[in-house]
């Protein structure tokens, strides 16, 4: 099977998964009584009397499959419902908040991968020497750290104690001066990423300010996820170093660095590619926590607010929770798809077998 055919087959397999996901998400809402689901449509306690009418109007008591197809029709036309958290359509919320999340996640990915691979290889090459012990220590400690605790501690140390990196103001990863400028009329929103928009607006100080505010969120995402890559890279590298072709390469007199960089590391990278899916899940989950702690109005904070009723004990914003679940699911499924294709590209045995 060629790579093209493999990609097409893999794409077709995604369709049933996505349909299944929508059924599951919809099934979860079906646990709620029609009355609870009707509550979404009222904004005022005085409208409570209208609930039977709302149930009838939106058909909330119809058989589940009828409601599912109606809901799917809406979803396919891009209507994910109205979110109370932002007082805006769910799709609009997602699109508006996405850049803030991307701004945290995007810089973390290369750091996680490069640092993880570097230390994983070092650790395996220096097996059972101090460097290996330190790296393994980090790997196992990082994996046991609660994200929210790490994030709070970083905030307490770097802001509360040292005063270097403050949290965001008004839900933006910016200081109050920058927020004032951004909310004034002079600011044009090109991409939604403050770092890039700062340059496009000709205000490099805003870019600098945004970068300063992104250090801690990025750090709390990377420290934990790097642990995962290190673990996998180390064990995969150890396995590869024991292979016969490595011994052959050494026997024919190649330099040690050449053996490690050109023979061992390349082959050891393959299992790391499969971990990328877990990495995506870790980042998607990590974002919920870090955005909440660093006060950044991205997708994660929106989901947390929606699920808890805005931290104040208000009503749960069901369309927003569903919209967020659906969105993360899509991201996750497609990330896994890309990983599989990459894997098949790296290791031809996969698509032939």
């Amino acid at each position: 099977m060629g790579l093209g055919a493999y990609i097409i087959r893999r794409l077709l397999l995604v369709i049933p998964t996505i349909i299944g996901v929508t059924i599951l998400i919809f099934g979860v809402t079906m646990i709620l009584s029609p009355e609870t689901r009707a509550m979404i449509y009222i904004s005022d306690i005085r409208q409570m009397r209208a609930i039977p009418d709302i149930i009838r109007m939106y058909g909330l008591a119809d058989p589940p499959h009828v409601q599912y197809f109606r809901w799917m029709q809406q979803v396919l036309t891009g209507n994910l419902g109205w979110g109370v958290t932002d007082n805006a359509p769910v799709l609009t919320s997602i699109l508006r908040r996405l850049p803030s999340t991307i701004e945290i996640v995007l810089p973390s990915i290369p750091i996680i991968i490069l640092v993880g691979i570097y230390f994983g290889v070092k650790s395996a090459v220096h097996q059972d020497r101090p460097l290996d012990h330190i790296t393994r220590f980090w790997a196992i400690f990082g994996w046991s750290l609660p994200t929210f605790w790490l994030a709070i501690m970083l905030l307490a140390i770097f802001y509360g104690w040292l005063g270097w990196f403050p949290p965001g103001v008004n839900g933006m990863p910016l200081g109050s001066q920058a927020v004032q400028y951004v909310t004034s009329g002079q600011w044009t929103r090109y991409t939604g990423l403050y770092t890039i928009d700062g340059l496009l607006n000709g205000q490099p100080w805003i870019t600098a300010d945004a970068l300063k505010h992104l250090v801690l969120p990025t750090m709390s995402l990377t420290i934990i996820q790097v642990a995962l890559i290190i673990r996998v890279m180390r064990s995969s590298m150890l396995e590869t170093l024991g292979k016969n072709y490595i011994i052959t390469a050494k026997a024919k007199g190649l330099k040690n660095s050449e053996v490690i960089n050109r023979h061992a590391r390349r082959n050891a990278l393959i299992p790391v590619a499969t971990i990328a899916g877990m990495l995506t899940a870790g980042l998607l989950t990590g974002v919920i926590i870090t955005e909440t702690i660093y006060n950044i109005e991205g997708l994660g904070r929106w989901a947390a607010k929606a699920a808890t009723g805005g931290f104040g004990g208000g009503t749960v914003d069901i369309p927003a929770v569903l919209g967020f679940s659906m969105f993360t699911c899509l991201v996750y499924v497609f990330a896994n798809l890309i990983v599989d294709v990459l894997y098949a590209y790296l290791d031809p045995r996969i698509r032939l077998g």
Partner: protein
Amino acid sequence: MEEYRKSMAPQIKELKFTLRRIKRSPLSIVGIVIIIGFSCIALLAPVLAPPVYTDPMTIWRDSFKNEPRPPGSPVLATDIGLLAMEKGYTVHLWGTAAGSYDIYYGCIWGTITAFRIGLVVTAVALIIGLIIGMISGYYGGVVDELMMRFTDIIFAFPGLVLCMALVVALPFSISLDLSLFVFAAIIFIGVAVIGTFVLKISGGLSVLTGFICSVVFVILDLYVLHRPPLWAYSIPLTRLDKSLIALTIVGWPGYARLIRGEVLRIKIEDYVEASKAVGCSDLRIMFRHILPNSLYPILITASLDIGGIVLLAAALSFLGLGADAGYADWGQMISFARNFVSVTMKYWYTFFIPGLFIFLFVLGWNLLGDAFRDILDPTLRRR
């Protein structure tokens, strides 16, 4: 006796080897010490921190003030404060969190919550995964395909996201018509018995048919028949129960996959063929021949998972989706601190101490799981 000792000799030798391996690896000893330490805290909780309220899982507070007080602050002479003094509390040993909750008390009793979450969720998820993975791997075919596609769907969600959605959607009480279960059980047992003893089909196949019949009946009853409930019963769910259910739903597919893989690997072994030839029933083959041989990888994964589940539960609690406010739960205690940390290091004890408990607990299980893997896995242990 002599005969018995001789027959047990290989096992004893292996056990000694295992113990020697444990002694040689310092990290696994650290893990064991941590878990034993936490077990002691959980068992001695009533002695270490005598309950002030009738419900020991509620953290006591001597006022409703939001300002945390540092470790060593005296207990205030309010109603509850006086009650606490009677029980022997003179100072807040580790200070108070926002809302004047005693941090020491919460941390000690939170250990019980952590064990409960970790062990209950893992055990229930393991049992569900075991049954589904076994059936799926052993019989294969359409059943396998359906079950694996279902696990695919659950895997398509990052754990925390699905947990959030489930906790939000689960009601505070589940109303059930118990007669439905009675009917389903009668159908299940009836079909299985008729299949095995009257029609003489194999036992496993009849059980499976019975299972499918009762599932079909439940679906028909819920969506088509609309009969009035004969034996209505409602189960109240606390907020903690809701997160336990959500965590279990997220957890079981991993085990189902793992066990299915193990069954597929083992069912082609010669000894399984041999027991089939001798005429063992499907159930006997599954539980006496396949299960014991796939136990180690499953136990290793489970011990590694306990830490992960406690982390996930803590994250849920931190977001405010865990137990009720005031319930002894580490994640929630950190969420009390959320409003203060962005201001100053002055209140370090409100987040540092409960966080340290979570971290050490998870670390203990992770070290233990890692050690188990290196020591028990036959492919790694003799290296």
